[in-house]
């Protein structure tokens, strides 16, 4: 009687090869690098704001702004394209010049950008440029008005964007100066018509409430200038954040000029996936 026939020998050989080859892989590499470098910056800011919305008042309101900004930039080792995602929330508390009325605004901004990289000066200067989808949403409320108490804000636009980063040494510490700018080019925004009421809007009285925006009727700008300074294992960021949001649609003029001092922490890391 034969204990091992030809087929059995073949099956055994395949199994031994599979087991040993797997063991070899585990032995030499149980982690996978996805080739991406993540740069996360979490910042808080405080600054000054100048708000105008002629649906609510002909007067400009001035006061303070409080921001929270989260940036994530993803650079790839195998590509010159980077991705950037921004979430930011801002609260504006403002008064009229006679201090008899208040307006406050709550805004959320989301930005998703695709950026191409160029390196200059032996890699010390990096420039990213590309496009982003930029979305703002929120509302501005006047605490004295009757049937025009608030102005709802919603704006989605395509935004050309550029970031320049210059790396240098400050003593023995790595540092970087960074400037980021975006200008909404074309998009669409919600706006009531000149004297339209929310009562009418609630009755489905649409009157050019979705408006095409471009850099002429909604010239806006978002920019940030920061200094990153690394000490031991922590990178601190301090700088200036400026939002200029403007629109002149449906005979309603709006602006929000916001200039803030921001401070935050930057973390740069890779993600390793470990095989089970």
């Amino acid at each position: 009687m034969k204990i091992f026939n030809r087929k059995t020998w073949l099956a055994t050989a395949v199994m031994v090869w599979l087991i040993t080859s797997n063991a070899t892989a585990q032995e030499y590499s149980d982690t996978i690098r996805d080739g991406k470098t993540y740069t996360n910056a979490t910042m808080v800011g405080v600054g000054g704001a100048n708000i105008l919305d002629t649906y609510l008042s002909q007067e400009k309101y001035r006061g303070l702004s409080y921001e929270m900004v989260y940036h994530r930039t993803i650079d790839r080792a195998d590509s010159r394209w980077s991705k950037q995602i921004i979430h930011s929330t801002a609260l504006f508390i403002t008064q009229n010049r006679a201090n008899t009325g208040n307006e406050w605004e709550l805004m959320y901004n989301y930005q998703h950008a695709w950026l191409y990289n160029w390196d200059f000066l032996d890699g010390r200067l990096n420039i990213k440029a590309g496009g982003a989808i930029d979305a703002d949403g929120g509302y501005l409320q006047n605490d004295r008005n009757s049937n025009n108490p608030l102005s709802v804000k919603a704006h989605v636009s395509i935004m050309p964007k550029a970031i320049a980063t210059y790396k240098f040494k400050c003593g023995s510490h790595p540092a970087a100066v960074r400037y980021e700018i975006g200008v909404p080019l074309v998009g669409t925004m919600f706006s009531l018509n000149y004297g339209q009421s929310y009562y009418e809007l609630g009755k489905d009285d649409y009157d050019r409430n979705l408006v095409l925006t471009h850099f002429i009727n909604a010239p806006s700008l978002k920019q940030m200038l920061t200094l990153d300074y690394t000490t031991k294992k922590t990178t601190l960021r301090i700088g200036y954040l400026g939002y200029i949001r403007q629109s002149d649609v449906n005979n309603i003029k709006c602006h929000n000029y916001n200039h803030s001092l921001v401070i935050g922490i930057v973390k740069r890391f890779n993600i390793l996936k470990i095989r089970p």
Partner: protein
Amino acid sequence: MKKLSLLILSLATMLTFVGCVDVDEYDDSPKGNFEALWHIIDEHYCFLDYKADVYGLDWNEVYERYSKQMNSNMTESQEFEVLTKMLSELRDGHVNLYSSFDNGRYWSWFESYPANVSDTLLRKYLGTDYKITNGMKYRILNDNIGYIRYESFENDLGSGNLDNILAYLAPCNGLIIDIRGNGGGLLSSAEKFAARFINTQTMMGYIQHKTGKGHNDFSEMKEQKLKPSSGIRWQKSVAVLTNRKVFSAANEFVKYMKQTPNAMIIGDKTGGGAGMPYSSELPGGWSVRFSACPMYDKDKNITEFGIDPDYNVQLSDSDLQNGIDTIIEFAREKLKQ
């Protein structure tokens, strides 16, 4: 470096697109406040052309007449007085100037007419055992006529409140809704109440809004359609009692009730107020309210100066002395017919 120059050039081009969206603020002075107020009305008030037709209002002539009265030596109270007087030229109860020491107003729309309502008489008719919910006082009168006294539309009317009131009054032969003195409030409350008196979707009138600064820059008229309530609906006769102080949302309620199948309007002409009011402000901080969205009846007539009743009945002095409310008694008789 060529690429770098190109990028810097692109950046500079982006920045040139960012112009300013701004307005010029008037000075915080008597003259500045006057200019701001005159322009707010000129650009946003909705009845300038209508009032030019009805009584010859000329807003440019008003500017000439009142600008001469403004000077930098005026006291705050003199300035307030002149500005209030200028606003009174609009003859509009929805136009007010608010300061920390006074509310500028035009109240001739009811002050120049008989009140046609008496608290003493109302107390007599309501007694002390009436029911009250959400601002509505109601009871069944001794000839089995339901009576609702409703003095303001300020409260948001709940459908549960109306169901309870109408269920309680359901055995009555007719219903009186007494809104004399009701100065308005929420348009939505007027709609909810009127929706209890229709069985099909009904076209009540029109509304429009301004689309620009010109006196005649208006959107198209939009139909005001009212759907019947899904709650208890009144199917018998109803009398709505009015006087000159019925204004704004209450005036709209009368407009709606005129389109319902079983309603009659009894009393004096209403006070009007057919422009939905908006607010703005002056450089000195005073707040101003003005009519912004005009509303029309189903024949596209502006109801700014009031709505005529079906039966014009005045409270007589002799009835008043005898403790009889002429208007309520007239309504009771009509409801019995």
